[in-house]
């Protein structure tokens, strides 16, 4: 038995505190390089705006929400740092997964007490709520909580405190999805 090879196949994670420090440094680097912080939901939002703009350009132009994200020079809403940030996050995550033995066959990770279907439904429902919430809060855990607090935004701080605070409260009710 090759223990060395087996080790490489075991999923490994770094220390969460160290991970937090790295994330902070990454945020600093993002501000330094791109002039703006991190964002995740923003890329999805631009994807939605782009699709609406493609299918119904007049509606998108007249809609006060969509029109904010359509560039005046006629270029695609997707040609934005948020999209490239999301692409980088995807491939960076893939590289991290490969190095730390988490890149395996397609699978749905879930608690043994629930089925993959339940997990997917719960994840979908949570994702929808998170998407709606992120637009109320003008950003998600990356855009508002991380980047917002890093730039001393009061709104960002409020989003972070409420997001994680409410998360702790509701975790009790949905604990059976995990443990």
């Amino acid at each position, binding site marked *: 038995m090759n223990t060395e090879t087996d080790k490489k196949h075991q999923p490994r994670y770094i220390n969460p505190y160290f991970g937090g420090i790295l994330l902070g440094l990454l945020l600093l680097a993002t501000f330094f390089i791109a002039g703006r912080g991190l964002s995740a939901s923003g890329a999805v939002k631009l994807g939605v705006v782009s699709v609406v703009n493609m299918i119904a350009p007049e509606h998108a132009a007249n809609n006060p929400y969509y029109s904010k994200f359509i560039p005046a020079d006629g270029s695609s809403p997707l040609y934005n740092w948020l999209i490239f940030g999301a*692409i980088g996050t995807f491939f960076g995550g893939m590289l991290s997964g*490969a*190095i730390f033995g988490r890149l395996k066959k397609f699978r749905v990770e879930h608690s043994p007490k629930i089925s993959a279907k339940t997990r997917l439904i719960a994840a979908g429902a949570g994702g929808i709520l998170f998407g709606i919430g992120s637009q109320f809060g003008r950003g998600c855990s990356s855009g508002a909580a991380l980047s917002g607090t890093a730039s001393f935004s009061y709104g960002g701080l409020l989003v972070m405190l409420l997001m994680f605070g409410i998360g702790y409260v509701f975790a009790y009710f949905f604990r059976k999805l995990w443990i």
Partner: protein
Amino acid sequence: MKEELFVSGRNIPNIDPYLNIWHWQIPIYLYLGGLAAGIMFFAGYFTIMRKEKDMETTVKWAPFLVPGALVLGLFALFLDLKHQLYFWRLYTTIRLESPMSWGAWTLMIITPLSFVWVASYMKELFPKWDWKFDILNKAEALAIKYRKSMAWLMMLLAVVLGVYTGILLSAFNARPLWNTSVLGILFLTSGLSTGLAATMWMSKSKYERKVLSRLDLIMIGIELFLIIHMLMGFLAASEVQIEAAHLFLGGEFTVVFWVFVIILGLVFPAALEILELKGFHIPVWIPALLILIGGLVFRFVMVEAGQITRFLY
């Protein structure tokens, strides 16, 4: 919209201010031609090296993609032609100084050759296959007998085809971005790399994938070297070529070139391939797909950007 005011000089539609004659058909054709050349080159190479058994996918299965790729590529080229009914005129002459003539004749030989190569393996791969006609059975026996000669011819023509996809552009001396001798060898290397990626994706054998992955890493290394060499060459040349290089160094193609061609199409898949060779589990389709997409984007970028570059007047 960028407007340009002409106070003197020419104003020829689709030529001025920028060349606007080649659209999606040409990069697709160049890409499929390069892909076919890559697959055929290594099929021929491993046949000559007597590695048919170890490299079964490379020699026997991957070449099944070639006739389809060539036919589709030629169809795309046909769609691009202004006078489509006159395409056959390319075959009424041989002009050694014309890259198009070289390409037309190479394709005229390599396309049927790819069909014959695939046909020669039909019975071996599909034991129930029946050619039905005696003459076809005899032709198959002949093809099997001369397989090694075919492999040599295939390798040679694959190199010509791969280089031609680049020379087709570099022969345009009025387009500074294209007018570099690096382009022929760069397109060949890229074609070989995409051919290896497609074969690697198809292969089920660990040994074969390892060999192909190593070869692909070499190709990626050469490709990166050639791209740097090309850009440095431009920067050391005349003003028009410096302007051409700046399209990728801060100009409008910078993001798409560096993100999708260099990082995601070459460096990132190379990193994944290195990790796989070191024993990490990497699903083979990920680097293969990235290389294939990177190769396609590279051709689109080169064709699009090349048409924008021009001599000042």
